[in-house]
């Protein structure tokens, strides 16, 4: 009963323009579906169109070919007489305007669990609706309330309709004969080839059915999918077509990234002598107090350069001799030690410097 309420409510919300749009699109889909169902052996599943109409095939075709959707929308197609009244009338009504509230109610009321079994009048008129609903759900975006309805009926729909829908999705534009089926199934299966460990690919029309070539083809498609991903990753690569050029772009990008890393490490090496890095506490710690400790990390390095510069001027002209190294080191060891120990005990050091803590917060945020 909640189904009834839900669908009834949804149906009533449709506006006239929405309905027309829906009906137009619906009729287009119907023609496609009808054609495909024509080619399929009719009547094997209860949900096939001709069975629903209870019309012999040519008359159903006549229904289709009565020119266009506009006519179908505008006026009911010239349906031949012998059709049993309630079904066809309902259906004609639905054909003109498939999402009639009354039909929706009927759909809700009479369950679509029908499947292959009971074919009574009501069920038959209802079963085209799930197909239309399903197709619309898969194909339309503007009518959003559709999916809600279809979801209710979707699990109830028998497999053939689902299969039909998915196949139909592939060949909307191509209206061919029997080759259509093989093509779409190959396409579907090759799509699945990405996900399944075993590749079930049916040969496309006019292509070799060698096991080798099949495997190669599957592999090539996997590689193409990967290339597409890479194209998205690398900026400015989506416009380029052709694998060789895309690969060139990717190579350039990787090289530039590696060079950037080198430049940045050079920069950090140049920056380094003055400042010490004790901000790992910023990233590991989740508590605010630890961020305060960074203040000391900031303060101490500021004092370092003074001492170092003094030492430089006095004891180091420009050279890098090991002896010269030793002297100043020994000379300033005490000073260095006194600076090193507070650094090491940063975590325990507690001070509140607003600017410093904000600074470290900023860095943490940026990172």
């Amino acid at each position, binding site marked *: 009963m909640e189904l009834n309420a839900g669908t009834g409510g949804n149906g009533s919300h449709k506006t006239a323009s929405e309905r027309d749009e829906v009906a137009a699109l619906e009729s287009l889909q119907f023609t496609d579906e009808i054609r495909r169902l024509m080619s399929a052996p009719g009547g094997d599943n209860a949900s096939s169109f001709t069975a629903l109409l209870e019309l012999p095939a040519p008359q159903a075709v006549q229904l289709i070919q009565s020119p266009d959707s506009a006519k179908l929308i505008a006026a009911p197609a010239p349906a031949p007489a012998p059709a049993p009244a309630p079904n066809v009338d309902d259906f004609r009504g639905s054909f003109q305007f498939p999402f009639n509230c009354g039909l929706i109610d009927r759909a809700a009321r009479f369950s679509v669990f029908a499947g292959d079994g009971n074919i009574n009048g009501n069920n038959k008129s209802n079963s085209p609706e799930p197909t239309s609903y399903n197709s619309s759900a898969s194909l339309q975006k503007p009518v959003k309330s559709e999916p809600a309805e279809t979801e209710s009926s979707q699990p109830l729909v028998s497999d053939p309709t689902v299969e039909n829908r998915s196949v139909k999705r592939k060949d909307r534009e191509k209206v061919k004969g029997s080759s259509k089926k093989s093509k779409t199934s190959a396409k579907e299966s090759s799509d699945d080839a990405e996900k399944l460990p075993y590749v079930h690919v049916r040969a496309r029309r006019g292509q070799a059915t060698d096991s080798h070539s099949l495997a190669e083809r599957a592999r090539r498609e996997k590689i193409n999918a990967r290339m597409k991903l890479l194209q998205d990753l690398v900026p400015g690569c989506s416009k380029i077509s052709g694998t060789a050029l895309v690969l060139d772009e990717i*190579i350039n990008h*990787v090289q530039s990234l590696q060079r*950037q890393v080198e430049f940045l490490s*050079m920069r950090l*090496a140049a*920056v380094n002598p003055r400042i010490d*890095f004790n901000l*790992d506490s910023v990233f*590991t710690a989740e508590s605010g107090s630890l961020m305060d400790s960074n203040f000391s990390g900031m303060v101490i390095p500021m004092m370092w350069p003074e001492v170092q510069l003094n030492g430089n001027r006095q004891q180091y002209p420009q050279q890098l001799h090991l002896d010269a190294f030793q002297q100043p080191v020994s000379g300033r060891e005490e000073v260095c030690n006194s600076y090193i120990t507070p650094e090491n005990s940063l975590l325990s050091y507690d001070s509140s410097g607003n600017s410093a803590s904000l600074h470290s917060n900023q860095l943490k945020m940026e990172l």
Partner: protein
Amino acid sequence: MNKYNPPRMNPSSLRSRFATRFLRSLSEINAQKPTASSSSPTEIFRRYRRIKVAADKSMAYSVRSRRTWSRAMLWKLRTRPCGRRSVKTSTIVRKTRHEKQNKNTTTATTTGEDGVVSGVEADELRELVPGGEAMDLYNLLDETAHYIKCLTTQVQVMKKIADFYSP
């Protein structure tokens, strides 16, 4: 006093893992050279080398062994400095390295792969991505994607740090 709660970053993201490790190694590098003469170009160059190795190492460690390129990079980093030390160890190292490469080559599919597609560029890519020599094209592309992602993270973090510390 206003309470400022900074947004917590995900502690297990690649970025935070890399940042933590890299900062730690940076502080180690700085602690190593106690004094000045750090402004001389040689010293700077030496430090640059060390920092670069530290960056690569931290990135490879952040990725662990989940990826072929990180494994190859870690391997390279481990054997490179030891290569100078003694001949014995280097031969042992070389042997095990060959074993590892052989292992990698056996995993490469021998069924018909389309080496026809983009042969030259694939080789170039193989040179760029660590550990790429022994991979077929599909895995190579996979590794490249992950490698690019990690490199961009690395660049971003290092840039932020450098910006932060330059006046």
